[in-house]
């Protein structure tokens, strides 16, 4: 099953849609375009059919178990979409007068408050449009804090070797240098190595806890003291918040700033790559630097925007308007439906599912990267031994899982575990689904030992088989051209 390109439905002059009849424009000729852009010439039916068919070529949460580690692929409730798309919300211009937006702004205000509670922080700004932009905001605030105190030489950001790529990339974007610290064999940070690199040049450290290795960093208090004593600040990458909601909080662990991936923990959809939201929360120290706009409230004036005028030390704006407002509405609906108890159950059951799946896979003969540790909401399996025995790699497992009707876990991340799978089931999957997944993994493992070549042939049942990535990069074909 594949589908031709929309450009191939071509028939000169056909169009899919009749806009409101055009008036006569008034534009000087020398500004005008001479050629026609290469847009499709397809009917509305063609377009609907084409994109409906294309959609069917995807795996998604709504069709498949999707245990992609670090991505928290939980169920995205349909009602969140429904309510975020209420016509009045969709019709609201971002620069509309605040008296025409009190309902919308109250919602954002309450979302800020709920996130303050969940992270243990003092104040929240919802404006970052994804985790990476939240990180940018965080590190920019850290820099602004040091600069505001005249402490202008702090340019180093420390990250563990297990860190997500956005952490070091963010540090660079903020003009900082990255210092990597290794992880110990037990999955915790090598604190001696950390001690060695912390100093007056330290702007801060970026951590996620539980880490990307699926374990809780037990020395976090010590790390916090170490970094704080050296004058640095602690940044919390909130991608893994699902594991600790209501159990502990970045604030309790000593972090100064945190971003939350609403598109992970708070169930806004991934949309095949976004949009997300990377709301940032800060402790008292960083509060003046919070990015604008965010929502303030007073009993007289109602809800209004924090701006350059009200927040002169702010790091400023991160987007033209208010970030991914529609994503925020979805997260709000989800959080209100959970309530305080439901939020705690998220961590209870995501961790239950991860530990159950980990134990079952171990029973099925898989090697855990950190067998002595509890899983957080995710865990790492290493296939090194299987690869050594059979040649079947983590990539081969991933492809074979597709044929079994499961999306693959995250592969080859974190970088420090060879042939690894980072597996995150999330709380919204049932035991039955987890059992079926174990079954599939065990089958593939068996097949690897029985007939490794067969596994390497996978996938066989997908719309395409393995793609030639080298050719894709060497002979880039990035746009379709009229022939």
């Amino acid at each position: 099953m594949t589908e031709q390109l929309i450009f191939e439905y071509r028939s000169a002059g056909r169009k899919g849609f009749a806009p409101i009849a055009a008036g006569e424009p008034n534009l000087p000729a020398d500004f005008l375009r001479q050629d026609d852009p290469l847009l499709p010439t397809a009917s509305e039916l063609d377009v609907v059919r084409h994109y409906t068919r294309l959609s069917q070529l995807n795996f998604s949460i709504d069709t498949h178990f999707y245990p992609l580690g670090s991505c928290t692929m939980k169920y995205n409730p349909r009602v969140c979409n429904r309510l975020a798309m209420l016509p009045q919300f969709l019709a609201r211009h971002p620069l509309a007068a605040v008296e025409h937006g009190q309902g919308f702004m109250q919602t954002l205000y309450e979302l800020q408050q709920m996130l303050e509670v969940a992270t243990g922080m003092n104040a929240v700004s919802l404006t970052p449009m994804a985790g990476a932009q939240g990180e940018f905001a965080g590190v920019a605030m850290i820099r602004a804090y040091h600069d505001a105190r005249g402490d202008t030489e702090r340019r180093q950001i420390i990250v563990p070797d297990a860190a997500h790529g956005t952490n070091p990339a963010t540090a660079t974007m903020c003009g900082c240098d990255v210092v990597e610290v290794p992880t110990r064999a037990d999955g915790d940070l090598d604190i001696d190595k950390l001690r060695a690199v912390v100093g007056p040049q330290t702007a801060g450290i970026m951590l996620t806890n539980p880490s990307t290795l699926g374990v809780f960093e037990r020395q976090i208090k010590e790390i916090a003291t170490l970094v704080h004593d050296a004058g640095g600040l602690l940044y919390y990458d909130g991608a893994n918040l699902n594991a600790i909601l209501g159990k502990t909080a970045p604030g309790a662990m000593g972090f100064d700033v945190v971003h939350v991936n609403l598109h992970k923990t708070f169930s806004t959809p991934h949309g095949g790559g976004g949009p997300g939201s990377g709301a940032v929360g800060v402790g008292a120290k960083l509060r003046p630097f919070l990015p604008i706009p965010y929502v303030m409230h007073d009993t007289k004036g109602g809800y209004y925007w924090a701006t350059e005028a009200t927040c002169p030390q702010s790091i400023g704006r991160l987007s033209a308007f208010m970030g991914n407002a529609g994503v925020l509405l979805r997260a709000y609906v989800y959080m209100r439906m959970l309530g305080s108890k439901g939020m705690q159950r998220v961590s209870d059951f995501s961790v239950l599912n991860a530990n159950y799946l980990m134990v079952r896979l171990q029973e099925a003969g898989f090697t855990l990267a950190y067998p002595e540790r509890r899983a957080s909401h995710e865990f790492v399996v290493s296939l090194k031994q299987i690869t050594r025995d059979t040649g079947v790699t983590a990539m081969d497992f991933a492809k074979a899982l597709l044929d079994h009707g499961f999306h693959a876990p995250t592969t080859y991340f974190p970088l420090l575990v060879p042939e690894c799978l980072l597996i995150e089931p999330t709380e919204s999957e049932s035991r039955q689904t987890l059992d079926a997944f174990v079954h599939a993994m065990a089958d593939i493992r068996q097949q690897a030992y029985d007939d490794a070549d067969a596994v390497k042939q996978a996938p066989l049942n997908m719309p395409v088989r393995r793609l030639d990535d080298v050719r894709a990069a060497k002979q880039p074909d990035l746009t379709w051209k009229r022939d």
Partner: protein
Amino acid sequence: MPFIPHTDDDVTAMLAAIGVTSLDKLFEEIPAELRIAGLDAVGPALSEAEISRLMQRRARADGEPLCFIGAGAYDHYVPAAVWDIATRGEFYSAYTPYQAEASQGTLQVIYEFQTMLASLTGLDVSNASLYDGATAFAEACLMAVRANRRNKSRKILVARSLSPVYREVAAGMLKGQGITLVELPLQDGCCDLAALQSLGGDYAAVAVQQPSFLGTLEQVDHITDWAHANNALMIGVVNPTSLALLKPPGQWGSNGADIACGEGQPLGVPLSAGGPYIGFMVCAAAVVRQMPGRIVGRTVDIDGKPGFTLTLQAREQHIRRSRATSNICTNQGLVATAATIYMALMGATGLREVARSCNANTGSLVAALTALPGVAPAFGQPYFHEAALRLDRPVGPVLDALSKQGVLGGFDLSRDYPELGHTLLVCATETRGTEDIKAYASVMSDVFGVAA
């Protein structure tokens, strides 16, 4: 338990399999002193029926005023098919297409998106999206500094007529790396070409918005040639609807702009209080290795069958880490899907009709408003679908009075452009026809205290 399927039996069996006696035991590695007491302040759970009622009430309370604001977000009609299809579960609830074989739908959509954007802008390579227009502009500046091999300057010459908030966002994103924006001044609502002539060549890039934030049309050919003559790259910030009518960046001047970027919201994305929107970026082939963000390529599978995959990933954070072209990871994928469907429905013809209507309606709006004493065009320039009007009194109170009567009258330019005096930026898209324009003019004449 909303969204958690576990029955009591499941929990018992699963805990037994793990070998612990309670859920709480699973958290034993969290040191006791870090444990918190819960999240009571979040409040009790609402049922789906209750939250629906609450949100409907809030949405209704906000009303639906008649809107003539543009200023970077435009109220175009979005065909019903666009979001009906984009929100199908298979698009809506998929992740970034890391497993290409199980993500051909999303990947092909992005490839089509890239093709459409490249063609609209007249350039070679589009990425899969950036966050929004403002960050796309900032990334374009960063990219230009990296890509300009002939000019190692860390300054970008930016038109004052380019969106003030884009400049503000970019300044914030460039600051850490010591890159600064230098302002190219204004002359009658456009770039001051005389001032340009007097400038030296110490810029990594020149950036101009077309149509400008003030609605005017810039002399982009001239500026592009100036940039290239001065070893600067040329960045065009463009409105995609306008590109159905206006000369695309790839055709500016003798050699075309090097990078085009902008806000894709006009392509089928509702105003939605400011987002999610979609930043786009398109560039000449020569500079693609400095492009930030995801890119999809077409290739073949081991049977030789065509298929799509993420490519040129060595630019990205998950591979290159601290030396990546950007930290962007999650982008605006679903919005790109919607924009692709929108463009597919419209085609070049439909998009051109939309653009023509916008231009014509804005012309009618300007005519209707400037018929009132005390309202005059601010500039003597052609405009696309937004125009600046000079009022004989402060804009703020006028907008307040209009808003009370259910009309959002436009954007007050006086904070960002104090030199322009009492200036109001108005916009009428294809959805604001004769009836609406009449309504605005009539309320405005009320506010001005004159007979309509």
